[in-house]
């Protein structure tokens, strides 16, 4: 029998090389495809500079507010396909350009929960691109006042403050995602007009009169397969404005929509009070700058961990934990300290640290189920089967509904439980 190292060496030594003609064929084909696709998508690829210009217009300023407004923008774009004498995209764009305030009420789909939301936005009268915005639901509140922003998550009872949402470092997550989407696909800019004509070929339109107002409305259905998304919009042909919209993350408009914007109210008077943010009582307040510093420190620890310098990594993780005890990074750092101790063979210290993590951060939806998993492993190292079993079971309980049951750590915890039970 060959020892493992020899087998590894043997496998590594056996290689197949490509033939020159294959190389040429693949290389040429790949370059040809790359250039073709690049050319095609360049036509629709919004450049960041273009995007920034677009961001100044009232229509796309909506996009910065929240991802759910995707439907508004997409709706405007989709409507172009309907360009009929009664309606042209330019008219809708022009109509939206005159808006000073907008209130959207609707429902967001959070997993299986349907959560009502209210979105309010007020554009600066100077037309300088600034706006105030408030998005509120049972789950979260987002307020933007000029360049400053606040986000509040009810479940975590945490407020995050962004001093300057326009700077890249201070940019809100949704806004960053939005920029990323703009960079990666042409859906949300005017470039979509051309793209849609090419790709969204299952659109449907129907004109109907509203029974109550007698006004003519157009109902639009459309889907876009590459994004697995579909849309439904209602637009008034007279005012050219969108009055209702739905967005699904499937192409068949199956099931409840991810977002249903039920009503759009344009140019309603919105007072300053609407855009005031009061920190809820007892909420944890996090300044984003502090969070970034913590992330940098944690990354240093990660690098040392990667380099297997566990002793130094412990020092850095400990610094992150002690300096930023209220941030999520503290919980992760503490767990990583435990993992480092385990790597160094310091089993007792590992157990103490994992238990401390659970004690101090047990109520956080971060890495707690993973910490339970590693605690179970540490107990297993020591041969304490009952305690290990308990930790793995806790891992499963804590991770249920939050983590994928077929992946780490739940899957591994289940396997370890079975293994331990067999040994008993």
């Amino acid at each position, binding site marked *: 029998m060959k020892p493992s190292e020899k087998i590894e060496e043997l496998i*590594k030594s056996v290689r*197949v090389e*490509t*033939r020159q003609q294959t190389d040429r064929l693949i290389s040429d084909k790949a370059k040809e495809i*790359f250039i073709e696709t690049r050319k*095609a998508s360049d036509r629709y690829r919004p450049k960041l500079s273009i995007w920034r210009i677009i961001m100044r217009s009232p229509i796309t300023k909506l996009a910065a507010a929240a991802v759910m407004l995707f439907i508004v923008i997409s709706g405007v774009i989709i409507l172009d396909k309907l360009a009929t004498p009664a309606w042209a995209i330019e008219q809708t764009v022009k109509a939206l350009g005159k808006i000073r305030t907008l209130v959207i009420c609707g429902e967001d789909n959070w997993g299986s929960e349907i959560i009502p939301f209210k979105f309010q936005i007020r554009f600066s009268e100077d037309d300088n691109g600034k706006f105030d915005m408030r998005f509120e639901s049972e789950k979260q509140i987002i307020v933007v006042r000029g360049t400053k922003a606040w986000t509040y998550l009810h479940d975590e009872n945490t407020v995050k403050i962004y001093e300057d949402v326009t700077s890249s470092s201070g940019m809100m997550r949704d806004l960053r995602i939005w920029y990323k989407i703009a960079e990666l696909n042409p859906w949300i800019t005017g470039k979509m007009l051309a793209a849609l004509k090419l790709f969204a070929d299952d659109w449907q339109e129907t004109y109907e009169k509203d029974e109550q107002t007698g006004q003519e409305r157009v109902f639009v259905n459309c889907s876009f397969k590459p994004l697995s998304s579909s849309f439904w919009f209602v637009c008034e042909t007279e005012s050219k404005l969108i009055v209702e919209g739905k967005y699904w993350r499937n192409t068949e408009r199956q099931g409840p929509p991810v977002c249903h914007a039920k009503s759009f109210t344009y140019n309603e008077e919105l007072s300053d009070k609407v855009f005031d943010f009061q920190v809820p009582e007892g909420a944890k307040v996090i300044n984003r700058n502090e969070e970034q510093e913590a992330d940098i420190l944690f990354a240093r620890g990660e690098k040392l961990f990667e380099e297997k310098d566990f002793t130094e990594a412990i020092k850095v993780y400990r610094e992150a934990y002690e300096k930023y005890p209220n941030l999520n990074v503290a919980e992760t750092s503490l767990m990583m300290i435990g993992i480092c101790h385990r790597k160094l063979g310091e089993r007792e210290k590992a157990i103490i640290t994992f238990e401390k993590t659970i004690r101090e951060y047990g109520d956080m939806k971060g890495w707690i189920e993973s910490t339970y998993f590693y605690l179970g492993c540490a107990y297993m190292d020591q041969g304490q089967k009952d305690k290990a079993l308990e930790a793995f079971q806790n891992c499963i309980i804590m991770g249920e509904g939050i983590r994928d049951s077929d992946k780490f750590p739940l899957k591994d915890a289940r396997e370890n439980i079975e293994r331990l039970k067999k040994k008993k």
Partner: protein
Amino acid sequence: MLEEKALLQKLARGEADALDCIYNKYKDDLLTIAVSRLCDVHLAEDCLQDVFVGFAEEAGKFQIQHNLKGYLISSILNRARNQLKKEGKTSSNAIEACDDIQTSDNPVSNLVENETKREVFNVLAKLPDEQHEVIVMHLYGEMKFREIAKQLKLSINTVQSRYRYGLEKLKTFFTIKEEEK
């Protein structure tokens, strides 16, 4: 890693030549990995072409954000598995096909030059998918266990145990082969 980043940035700028560099950097590893699953160089070359052309298409549309090496290796392994399914073979009966390779006009014997190569690929292809992927990622892709864990969304412990079990199996297979001789 830095080189990989720079190549991806070049691609993002639309420089098609970066594709050549990426192809040359990974082609032999990817082909070897595909052969280790399929035991057929021609089929493995088809997979390599599919993967690379697919990658070029994706790179033309989007800015690639993945860990490039991990992404390419995972792609070629998926292609190879699909190819086996398409051919109605499992990894183990692919071996039979490989065992049958005797004649010089067979693609494998053209390229897999000597007996050792054939033996190693035969044995590797006998491994279950999950052990095979970890072993080839580590040995041919030179990926660290941590990187593999991240790529496959598994814990490091799982990756290490799959690797260990895989090596144990290989040892057994080699022993049987030696005894047969």
